[in-house]
């Protein structure tokens, strides 16, 4: 019997209801309908789709911020539980807002450990420092407050905070938006080197194919809450089967412009 994949999502659905005074709640939006895929360790999956295609809902279901209406999520062969929520970490859409501006870098990065009451204060500080160093921020910056960091550094802080609990899967929800291309490239480089060293799997969520194509091993395209195409990056880029995928690729190429 083959070993379980890191993540197996089966027929995941999420429907939003509107509550009414009388009578049963009325379904309004099907944010996810029967989404299935698997992801192995140290692999990167890009989830591409227009706004409202259900990408973020997927991320929120995987990180247990939302409870799916139907379907199952198996992580290392077992259902998700609050006890293991730290194994899957989410980097928010705007990392800067996910950092408390009054906290120092050290306080931010060690917060998950504090909440989970792991280790002593000294150990926590040490782990925070090494997580920061992994993301390329010097130890000396431990005492700096969040709002003193630049945009790219805050991104790194957010990643360091996710890494401090040694997750096996890191989900980045539109995390490359708002970074200039140069910074985005830096963060991309950081992610690949972390994957090599720590064997973390990534799910990159984006509406822009160009931002994530370079990093992803495979790409899933979503539309109206369903995955319409899922293939290895090279195959999907060269032979897109679904019209929506072709449009996405065409849009990405058009934005890049003619090359000399």
């Amino acid at each position: 019997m083959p070993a379980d994949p890191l993540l197996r999502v089966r027929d995941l659905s999420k429907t939003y209801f509107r509550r009414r005074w009388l009578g049963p709640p009325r379904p309004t939006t099907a944010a996810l309908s029967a989404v299935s895929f698997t992801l192995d360790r140290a692999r990167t999956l890009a989830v591409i789709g227009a706004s409202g295609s259900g990408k973020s809902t997927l991320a929120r279901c995987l990180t247990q911020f939302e409870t799916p209406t139907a379907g199952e999520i198996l992580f290392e062969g077992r259902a998700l539980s609050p006890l293991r929520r730290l194994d899957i970490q989410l980097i928010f859409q705007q990392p800067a807002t996910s950092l408390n501006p009054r906290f120092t870098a050290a306080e931010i990065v060690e917060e998950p450990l504090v909440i989970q009451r792991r280790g002593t204060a000294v150990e926590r500080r040490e782990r925070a420092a090494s997580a920061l160093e992994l993301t390329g921020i010097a130890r000396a910056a431990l005492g700096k407050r969040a709002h003193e960091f630049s945009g790219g550094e805050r991104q790194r802080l957010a990643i360091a905070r996710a890494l401090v609990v040694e997750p096996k899967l890191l989900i980045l929800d539109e995390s490359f938006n708002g970074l200039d291309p140069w910074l985005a490239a830096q963060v991309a480089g950081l992610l690949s080197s972390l994957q090599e060293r720590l064997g973390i799997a990534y799910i990159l969520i984006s509406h822009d194919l160009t931002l994530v194509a370079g990093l992803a091993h495979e790409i899933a395209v979503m539309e109206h809450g369903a995955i319409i195409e899922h293939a290895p990056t090279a195959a999907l880029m060269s032979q897109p089967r679904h019209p929506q995928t072709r449009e996405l690729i065409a849009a990405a190429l058009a934005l890049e412009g003619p090359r000399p």
Partner: protein
Amino acid sequence: MKLRLTLVLLAALHAFVVFAAFFAPYDYAEQHRDYPFAPPTRVHFTDAAGRFHLRPFVYGVTQDSPGGDYREDRGRRYPVEFFVHGRLFGAGAPGILFLWGSDGFGRDVFSRVLYGGQISLLTGLVAAFLSLSLGLLWGTLAGFYGGWVDRLLMRGAELFLALPWLYLLLAVRAFLPLHISTTQAFFLLVAIIGTVGWVRPARMIRGVVLSARERGFVLAARGFGASGQYLIRRHILPLTWSVVLTQATVLIPQYILAEVTLSFLGLGVGEPVPSWGNMLADARQYHTLIAHTWMLAPGLATVPLLLGYLTLADILLERSGPGY
């Protein structure tokens, strides 16, 4: 700079009041029956012959007839003495020194304003503390837990807003015995003022908490498995401090004025203990306005204090920097 100046002003005003026993030339209850409604005593440096005296002095005053005008008696000269009987200054007996005049019992208005500030300021501070504690508790719980907790708490709070307070106060006054001790009156004042005013801060704090709850870093901490208690303590309460501080600087002067109003209605501390409220209540007669205007001094005393607190509120609001 502006902040420092304001703080110095406020600290000085509070020091005057706290150390009234030192700064005031008389005790608040000390009566000079021979000098009812005496106007402010003039302090002189040069005498009738035009000689300059380094030590200021006052002339004795006499009344032409009972109830008549006061006149300086140039023949009697009393030097102002400093650091006598544990007080900063005073006139050598039998001279009198009423910087802001005297009331109907010949009590020094200046001294009574300083002593009276103790009741007024303490009422303002303690009642503001009470209001803000209630508001913080109520607003945080309602804003953080939302849903039916929020609805229950806020509807309850709005019930408080809807109460006809003036009638309620009169009813409370009618219900209580005619004379209550100073301590009882003080706690009654604090309880009334504090419970009347807590709803507004509660609503503001609820608003802050409600938006704080959805901030990225709160969601992130929740994702790490943080408990409600942790979230409130570490992330949400610090965000409410600027509101609490500015509310405090707004409420304290407002409550000092409320004490004045309530004393006017007879809900304040009773004679002979002074407070700015009951001193002003004394000054409500017609003769005050036409002849004894110095009796309004406690009203003037509130001005620098209110200005100080409101300026402080302004500065604190301006200072709320990034993320605050």
